[in-house]
């Protein structure tokens, strides 16, 4: 058996022997993926959110209350919002301040009178600064409702404008709307077209891909720890005294790290697939290839970390920094589509970005050929990191 394989298998066995560490490394990412998948599974789906909002009417006439009730009765809104009707603006304002209500629409005093007189009306949406995202959605709802009122007002103004002119010109009778109050505007409708989307990636699938991409790199950190530990304990130096060449040592260590990464990947893949029903798409071979390519990049990263960090403590500082940056940029935490385009050059140096992107493409059912480029890039990143590590590596 070549020496480097011997070294690799020894490294692998050392790690497996620490059962707790091994379990943590393999099993805990599964737990995290499960939590994230089930936690975020329902984001944006109406049956899982219930945003508390309010409508306050301090109007003395009856239009304000009618308007409030008309909004509160819309079924689509009820499924997303928990709408509280009130006539106490101070109370509601205090609730928004405390964050008990995310936002509240305020219908001002004199609302009915202003509508009747055709005067401009200003509605106000109080927004909780602690929840800008959801408060903004309610503000949008309020604006759509206000547009309806405005429409009624404009039709009324037109009719009234015509009446004043009617003093001079005779207007043909009939055809006149009876009043703007419950006018429905149907000339322009919004219709939804059904788009049969490509196979969608569910939240749990997304996080399975994202977290797998991240944790493979954390595996590399372990590899670097092992290397530095042996250097500190001088076992590396002793190995150099044996007939084993530097090549044997480096190749053996790297192979050991790669084997661990591959194992980790296979456990994550099988675990997410069979325990959580994650759908990795129709091309398991492609998924494997991407996983192995990232494992290679992780091995290169381990070499670079071992070269850069003199002590385990140092690697404990640099390692998570680099990995978390890679992971954050690569879409492990937040989908890359939501990131601005100027981040693209930063993303392209992250192995996580290429791996997660390729995983997601395959999950969506894309053809095998789509991953060739990411896989090549991953091997390239791995080779660069490996080369750098080799160049700067100290053995004692």
């Amino acid at each position: 058996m070549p020496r480097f394989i011997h070294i690799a298998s020894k490294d692998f066995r050392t790690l497996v022997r620490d059962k707790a560490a091994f379990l943590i490394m393999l099993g805990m990412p599964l737990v995290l993926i499960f939590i994230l998948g089930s936690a975020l599974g329902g984001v944006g789906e109406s049956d899982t959110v219930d945003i508390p909002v309010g409508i306050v009417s301090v109007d003395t006439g009856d239009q304000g209350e009618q308007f409030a009730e008309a909004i509160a009765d819309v079924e689509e809104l009820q499924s997303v919002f928990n709408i509280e009707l009130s006539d106490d603006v101070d109370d509601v304002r205090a609730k928004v301040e405390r964050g008990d209500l995310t936002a509240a629409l305020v219908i001002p005093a004199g609302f009915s009178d202003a509508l009747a007189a055709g005067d401009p009306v200003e509605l106000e949406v109080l927004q909780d600064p602690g929840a800008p995202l959801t408060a903004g959605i309610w503000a949008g709802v309020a604006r759509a409702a206000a547009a309806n009122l405005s429409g009624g007002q404009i039709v009324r103004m037109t009719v009234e404008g015509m009446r004043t002119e009617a003093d001079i010109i005779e207007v043909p009778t009939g055809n006149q709307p009876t009043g703007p109050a419950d006018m429905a505007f149907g000339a322009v409708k919004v219709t939804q077209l059904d788009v049969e989307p490509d196979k969608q990636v569910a939240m749990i699938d997304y996080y399975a891909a994202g977290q797998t991409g991240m944790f493979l790199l954390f595996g590399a950190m372990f590899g670097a720890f092992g290397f530095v530990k042996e250097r500190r304990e001088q076992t590396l130096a002793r190995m150099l005294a044996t007939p084993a060449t530097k090549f044997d040592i480096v190749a053996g260590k790297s192979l050991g790290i790669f084997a661990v990464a591959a194992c980790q990947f296979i456990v994550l893949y099988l675990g997410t697939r069979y325990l959580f029903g994650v759908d990795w798409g129709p091309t398991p071979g492609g998924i494997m290839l991407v996983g192995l390519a990232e494992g290679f990049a992780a091995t290169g990263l381990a070499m670079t970390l071992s070269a850069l960090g003199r002590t385990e403590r140092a690697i404990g500082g640099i390692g998570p920094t680099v990995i978390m940056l890679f992971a954050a940029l690569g879409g492990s935490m937040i989908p890359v589509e939501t990131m601005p385009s100027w981040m693209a050059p930063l993303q392209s140096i992250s192995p996580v970005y290429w791996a997660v992107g390729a995983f997601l493409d395959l999950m969506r059912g894309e053809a095998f050929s789509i991953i060739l480029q990411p896989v090549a890039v991953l091997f390239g990143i791995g080779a660069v990191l490996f080369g750098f590590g080799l160049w700067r590596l100290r053995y004692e």
Partner: protein
Amino acid sequence: MIRKILSIGWLNVQQMVRNPAELVGVLLLPVALTLVFGTAFGSGEERPLTIPVVDEDGTAYSAQVLDLLGEERSFELVDVDRAEAERRIRESENSLAIIVPEGFGEGVEAGDAQIQVMRDPTSEGGFAAMAVVEGIAVRMSANAAAANIPSFDRMGREAPFAERYGAADALWEPEPPVSVVGQTVVASEVRGDAEFASNNTQYSTGFTVMFIMFVTFGGASGILEEREQGTLRRLLITPNRKTVLITGKIFGIVITAVLQAAILVGIGALFFGVPWGKDPLVVGLLLLSYILSVTGLAILVSAVVRSRDQLSGLMPLLSVGLAMLGGSFWPLQIVSPAMQTIAKFTPTGWAMIGLTDVVARNQGIEAAALPALVMLGFAAVSMGIGAKLLKFE
């Protein structure tokens, strides 16, 4: 005794400062991530929603639809054809596409026009945009309704539809008859009238909460390193009691975390205008309670694991996992009620609840008291158990 505790703690800080790689982890990572994500997601307006639009009609009416859409500052329109729009939605590239089909202009006059919307059913981004499209449809419908009321000029001629439509449409500007203004309410002050409040506070508090946990775990792993190297055992030979030693170690971790917190708060306040400084005492109370609670967690975890390898495996998992559960990455309002309840079992969750109340909502001590108490309780329990279980050799 206090002096001994202080000097052990100070030693820890010195060890960290002397180790450039560790400084990188404590300083560079949080600064880099906060800056990158702060700039990327900072304020809602800087990241417009890209909406593919298709104009198959080419009339003044279809142009109006696009004009009105273009007025939305949060939208960025791209002109495409129908096939491209469909592809973008199918491939989840954009969450919403808007199509003005051929015959739209005639439809407006005949009272039968359609704006077509293609929506990615899995995307959550479309809800707010749909409200805008509906608003445009209402405006145009109302104009059409007004234009359908026959009117005659002084000569007794019936004005053409387009002219009457234009007259009605003019009434929407500069402000429609019924308009909406947004107001962000902050306790004891009114802050501007921005339609959307900024997201910076969420990111700044979230990252601060997450990285503090990173640092405390890093500190705890320093204790394990000393145990592996046998220096902890040597400390036991000195005339110090174990409690003094442990308190000193904890103190060291807390100082590092406080430094870290100060840096993160500083970045948030200086670069992103997050109102951290409105109530420094209460913010300090919350951050310190949080630091103590995660230090306790770090001590507890390092007492339970056997090797530093195990801790290093657990660390990213615990810190990223707890940060996500606690609402560091996204606001808790958007997760399900069950997950909101789970957040209340994490120190990160309580820190986010307290900090959001105090920093974003400018509430005083009354909002911070409960979160601080819960975190201090958590700190006491976890430190107590952790210190008892921690083995020195």
